[in-house]
């Protein structure tokens, strides 16, 4: 019961899922879905396909350096069983996972830090460039603000007598 990672998109492949390609130099390529398998057959580079983990890692969109990654690794040398150690490891796994999730969220927040300011500056620039679409230049000279004057609309109320008439049957 070993969980492998897809060669293309790096997602986890559970037993009974996906497909495996063994090349004639004995190198193994595992794929989680036919989507990844087809992309591999089309000779696409995972680092250039935006929905893969490899792309996100290369372009800094995911956390790449963290000590919590060291706990999950392929161990090519079996450990002798120790009951106390196994119990401690099982106890520590949810704690490690919680820490990893918190750090990933922190990384995402840091990455998005300058987003609001950037959007605001873009909006200001758009206003400055496009104000003439809704405000004529002659009006702009008199009133050089980037806001529009409020327009008052008169609303006439219906007469009370008409509403109270019952319908004739």
């Amino acid at each position: 019961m070993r969980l492998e990672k897809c060669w293309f998109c790096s997602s986890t492949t559970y037993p009974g899922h996906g497909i495996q390609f063994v090349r004639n130099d004995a190198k193994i390529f595992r794929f989680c879905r036919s989507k990844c398998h087809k992309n591999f057959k089309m000779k696409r580079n995972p680092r250039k396909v935006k929905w893969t983990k490899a792309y996100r890692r290369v372009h800094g969109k995911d956390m790449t350096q963290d000590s919590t990654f060291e706990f999950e690794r392929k161990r090519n040398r079996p450990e002798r069983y120790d009951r106390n150690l196994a119990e401690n490891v099982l106890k520590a796994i949810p704690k490690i996972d919680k820490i990893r999730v918190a750090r990933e969220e922190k990384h995402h927040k840091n990455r998005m830090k300058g987003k609001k300011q950037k959007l605001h500056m873009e909006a200001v620039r758009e206003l400055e460039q496009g104000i003439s679409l809704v405000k004529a230049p002659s009006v702009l000279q008199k009133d050089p603000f980037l806001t529009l004057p409020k327009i008052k609309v008169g609303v006439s109320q219906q007469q009370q007598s008409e509403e109270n008439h019952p319908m004739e049957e």
Partner: protein
Amino acid sequence: MGGKCPHRNVKKRRYSHKTARRTKFELKGDDMVYAQLNKPDEERAPLPLDEDLPGMGQYYCLHCDRYFSNVAVRDEHFKTKRHKKRIKQMMGPAPHTQLDADVAAGMGMPDNGPKLMSM
């Protein structure tokens, strides 16, 4: 009268010629070529004699994985645009491997345990 024959497919016919089939199925993978190119010169064995290959298998382009019948044809191949593109590609970053996929998924480097004593 007229109409299209349901079995004759232009796309299938276009992609079934020799060059396209070879490019798709017979070429070495990028990582195999990359490993061969980065091998030090001492380990590169001379090309074995093979009567089934053109030119006894002695005129070989490693980047494109092709055999040629003599030196002149091979040197002519070295001038082609496809070969130059291939050289540029091989001088770039290392190709993608399963290790890269594992690291991107959040796994650490593999643990190979202690080094065994040499006999």
